[in-house]
């Protein structure tokens, strides 16, 4: 199913992934490769399993008691569902940005500094300042907040909050960033800023984004995977998927007949 050239080694590989919530099956035998330094978009109608799949990649589903995952997911060839895997380490390497901006009820500075602080990434205050500043800069938020780093993060606008959450995620310098519909609660201007940001971030990070906006997927991603009713229907280069879909279901969705 994967039509990528075999020369590029994938960052993440998923093979035969099934997810169950209690008795209900949410994902069915998903095979998918995520390539490094690309933006991969997961699209599909609501309830198709795209967010579920995303949350499998950093084992966020472990937090849901009735959720059961089987199959094989590897990060650089290492099985992330191996019982010996340390979740803290995994999630430090695979960061996440959530659907609704969820800044901690703390000052802006502390929000960004939190990840580096718990992981012990800064040896001095100056180093921490440097991490916070560069992360905010990369998230395109520095100019707006540099004079009020002590202000509570909850006072920022929705778009600023989401960029803060991105800054918070990259401050830990993960290898992969997962984004779960990061623009769904934002206005078009804020959305445009975050989309521009993603393109910049893929220089340093591998990005997987769930979106229900096909336009967004087309704008930001290099690769697109289409999910439907728990199945991964089609995956390929974004241009190909949007212009010459192979599966009739993909075509129906893209042309607006389902979803």
């Amino acid at each position, binding site marked *: 199913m994967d039509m990528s050239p075999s020369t590029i080694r994938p960052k993440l590989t998923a093979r035969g992934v099934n997810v169950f919530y209690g008795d209900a099956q949410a994902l069915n035998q998903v095979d998918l490769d995520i390539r490094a330094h690309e933006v991969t978009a997961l699209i599909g109608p609501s309830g198709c399993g795209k967010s579920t799949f995303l949350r499998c990649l*950093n084992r*966020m589903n472990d*937090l849901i*008691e009735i959720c059961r995952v089987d199959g094989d997911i590897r990060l650089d060839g290492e099985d992330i569902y191996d019982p010996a895997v340390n*979740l*803290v*380490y*995994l*999630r*430090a*390497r695979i*960061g*996440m*940005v*959530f659907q*609704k901006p*969820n*800044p*901690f*009820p*703390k000052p802006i500075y502390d929000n960004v500094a*939190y*990840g580096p602080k*718990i*992981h012990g990434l800064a040896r001095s205050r100056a180093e921490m300042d440097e991490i916070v500043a560069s992360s905010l800069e990369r998230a395109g938020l520095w100019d707006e907040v540099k004079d009020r780093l002590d202000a509570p993060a909850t006072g920022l606008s929705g778009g600023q909050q989401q960029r803060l*959450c991105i800054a*918070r*995620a990259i401050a*830990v310098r993960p290898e992969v960033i997962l984004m779960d519909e990061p623009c769904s609660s934002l206005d078009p201007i804020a959305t445009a800023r975050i989309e521009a940001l993603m393109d910049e971030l893929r220089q340093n990070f591998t990005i997987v984004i769930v979106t229900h906006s096909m336009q967004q997927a087309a704008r930001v991603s290099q690769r697109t995977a289409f999910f439907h009713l728990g199945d991964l229907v089609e995956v390929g280069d974004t241009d190909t998927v949007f212009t010459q879909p192979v599966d009739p279901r993909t075509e129906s969705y893209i042309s607006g007949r389902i979803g």
Partner: protein
Amino acid sequence: MAEAVTAGESAPRSSLLAAPEGRRARQVLGERILLGLLAASSVVAILTTIGIALSLLFETLRFLDAVPLFDFLFGLNWSPQIAIREDQVGSSGAFGVVPLLVGTGLIAAVAMTVAGPLGLFSAIYLAEYASPRARSFAKPILEILAGIPTVVYGFFAVLVVAPFVRDSSEAAGFEVSSESALAAGVVMGVMIVPIVSSIADDVISAVPQSLREGAYGLGATKSETVRNIVLPAALPGIGGALLLGVSRAIGETMIVVMAAGLSAQLTVNPLQAVTTITVQMVTLLTGDQEFDSPKTLAAFALGLLLFIATLILNLIALMLVRRYQERYD
């Protein structure tokens, strides 16, 4: 109702604005009366508060005729027995409330030293760590502790805890009186654990899951998430839970009556016997005395102090918890 439907078919429709008649009118009247009764019932709670406030205030004012307010609030000596002797007319006796406040504070401090950590960690465990099975085991334990009458705690303090405190501190070379603030305070602390833990549990559970996910997504461990994100977010509510615990501690009566003693000493040594506001209220009102004696009236003055103190604590606590809940609603 059935008549109205058939009538509507044939007869000219009555106006929507027409006054109700017959059965419907009686129903409206009945509902008015019932509504009045319901509203009247809701006033009983207000009347209770007013009744408490007025009766305490009234008797306290009469008490203050005999004992000056300054002597009452700042006096360092409490020995009300003197004042009821006939030959002591003119003497105000010793109604200085400071030793009682110190004793009450000391015991409440001991109680909160026990109830604070135990209650908070129980709540954290229940809200964040316990599996549904562990929760279904641990929660009833706390509920049972909450349901045990205070007189039972008092008896237990006298039967087991006080001798234990006495023996172990004597073994350690401390001098202990047979009734100690420590024994009463520790038992009271256990009694307060469920109050703190149940409110703190609610408050912690109300912290939005998205904040936890944010921390986990950065690679925080569970305890880091709880300590750095969840607890600070829940802080006002937890403060409210602790304040309600303190309010409960200073108003608690039977444990201290049975285990803390009667001697009004000015001490902060928890191994000494101290007395509290509530103990003195009970002592002043048991035994035969006239209703109007300064001793009886003093109990009301103490009651007023207690009522005001707990009222302030409760109001602050309820405000903290409520404002916190609104933040995340």
